């Protein structure tokens, strides 16, 4: 490096900041926020703007966190797109159509998510089929089952649920009329997954799994159980979002989850998780989610053609992937030269 004049300490602490993969994501977030703050003005910077993008961020963020863990571990999960409606439909049928107490329906919905996650994880761990294909398969299967059971049991693809006030308050109200409670749940998920990935020893297993599955197994990491666990977490989180949606909008739709598939992956990638696995962080995923949601909602405050939003997101995604690769190269380079 050309920093011969500086002392070792400055170089390494500077290097440490630049080396962080989140740095690029954070720069992107600041840029996007500033851009829409200028165009959107006080409404975007005030409560309406914040609530608007935070409501979006909370839902996609809850799904993106475990997807991020899976991507760090080198896997994908497409099935979230149909786990979300499957979960809300299950809860709506159990509690709305058959009239059982709301918590029972909710447990049923979450159970569906865990079950689909288990099947995904089991298939990924025990076969050599790429997880992309497996989870596309389970996505279609779950979608078909949801549709089939909804029509069979209720005779409709849309089922409504009016929950008791406490359940509604916890899972589906707007605080101050604007901020969906889902963002507090998101914060909870962030805390748990941060602990899992960065503090507990399991985080190390996830990085190792994504770095080199074979070596991870040889090192004694229970890779099959870990994979199954991560998919169950992903299924659970998607099911939880399904429940949040059901209680917020008081009805379950069969085809409500598809946008989450790509949106969650985009949040994760914009947040600096490597597509090849092995690197990433929860802070990055949160930044990626915020960036994605700001673009997604900011466009409506900006006075620009809403279709522009997709262009923005596409460009951001490509920029993120490019800078991820750049950061990885830089990381290894700085790490080598530092001796």
């Amino acid at each position, binding site marked *: 490096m050309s920093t011969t004049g500086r002392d070792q300490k400055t170089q390494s602490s500077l290097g440490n900041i630049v080396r962080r993969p989140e740095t690029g994501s954070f720069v992107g977030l600041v840029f996007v926020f500033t851009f829409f703050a200028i165009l959107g003005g006080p409404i975007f910077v005030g409560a309406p703007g914040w609530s608007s993008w935070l409501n979006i961020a909370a839902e996609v963020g809850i799904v993106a966190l475990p997807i991020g863990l899976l991507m760090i571990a080198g896997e994908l999960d497409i099935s979230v797109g149909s786990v979300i409606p499957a979960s809300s439909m299950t809860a709506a049928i159990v509690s709305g159509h058959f009239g059982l107490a709301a918590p029972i329906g909710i447990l049923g919905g979450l159970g569906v998510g865990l079950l689909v996650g288990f099947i995904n994880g089991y298939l990924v761990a025990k076969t050599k089929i790429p997880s992309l294909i497996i989870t596309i398969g389970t996505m279609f299967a779950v979608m078909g089952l949801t549709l089939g059971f909804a029509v069979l049991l209720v005779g409709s693809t849309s089922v409504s649920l009016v929950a008791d006030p406490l359940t509604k308050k916890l899972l589906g109200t707007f605080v101050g009329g604007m901020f969906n409670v889902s963002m507090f749940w998101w914060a909870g998920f962030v805390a748990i997954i941060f602990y899992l990935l960065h503090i507990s020893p399991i985080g*190390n297993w996830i990085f190792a799994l994504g770095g080199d599955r074979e070596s991870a197994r040889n090192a*004694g990491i229970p890779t099959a159980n870990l994979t199954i666990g991560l998919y169950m977490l992903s299924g659970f989180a998607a099911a939880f979002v399904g429940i949040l949606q059901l209680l917020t909008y008081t009805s379950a739709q069969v085809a409500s989850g598809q946008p989450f598939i790509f949106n969650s992956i985009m949040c994760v990638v914009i947040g600096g998780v490597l597509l090849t696995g092995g690197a990433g962080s929860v802070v990055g995923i949160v930044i990626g989610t915020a960036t994605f949601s700001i673009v997604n909602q900011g466009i409506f405050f900006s006075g620009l053609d809403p279709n522009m939003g997709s262009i923005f997101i596409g460009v951001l995604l490509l920029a993120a992937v490019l800078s991820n690769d750049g950061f990885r190269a830089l*990381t*290894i380079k700085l790490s*080598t030269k*530092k001796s």
Partner: protein
Amino acid sequence: MSDKKVVIELRNVDKSFGPIDVLHNINLKVREGEVLCLLGDNGAGKSTLIKTLAGVHQPTRGEILLDGKSVTFDRPKQAQEMGIATVHQFGGTFPLMSIGRSFFAGVEPTKGWGPFKVFDRKTANEIAVKAVQDFGITRIDDGDRLVGGLSGGERQSLAIARAVHFGARVLILDEPTAALGVKQAAHVLRIVNEAKRRGLAVIFITHQVMHAMAVGDHFAVLIRGAIAADFGRGEKTREEIADLMAGGENMAELEASIKV
């Protein structure tokens, strides 16, 4: 050489996958502080043999003896717990993880209690750096550095140091020098000698005869799943070994015919 204790022994081991016989009647002994070089061309069954030793495969017939007692491994983890460690060609390390994290993958040191365990980064880094430096790799001094920034030889050394640290008594090195340059390979060979000095039983797989001759005490040549030759240090010349590895063909003649 025969006064040292035999650590691991294979007795009449056969391995077949369905109708395909891969290993026939393998008999091998490795003593403590001794390097057994397992030589063989591609497809000779070297990988199957070491996977059988490491618990990935179970022998179809025959037995594995550890310290004279018959053992069976259902899973690689069991073999590891009994002190059999395998280091693979690409180091068994994780390029995008720090040295400390990579060193302790799967056996993380933790602080805290109950379900709230915290990965102890400081301890992990200290132990990892010390373990590697004890093997003579003094260039590694910061446990936060990424493994991807190390040279191939350093990665191998890290993996070997890791295996030894976690109580390996039998070290299986799967072509550790195959992808390395001359200097890096020499580096790894020194580490192998250090492991030998510490009394480990080392099984060194290679198809580079020079590397084998630099560290080996004992040589076994595998051809089509059977041991074609088994001899001690200095009993055969480099040319003879190369001929054996090529399946009995005369390499010298072959080389001569190519030169024409």
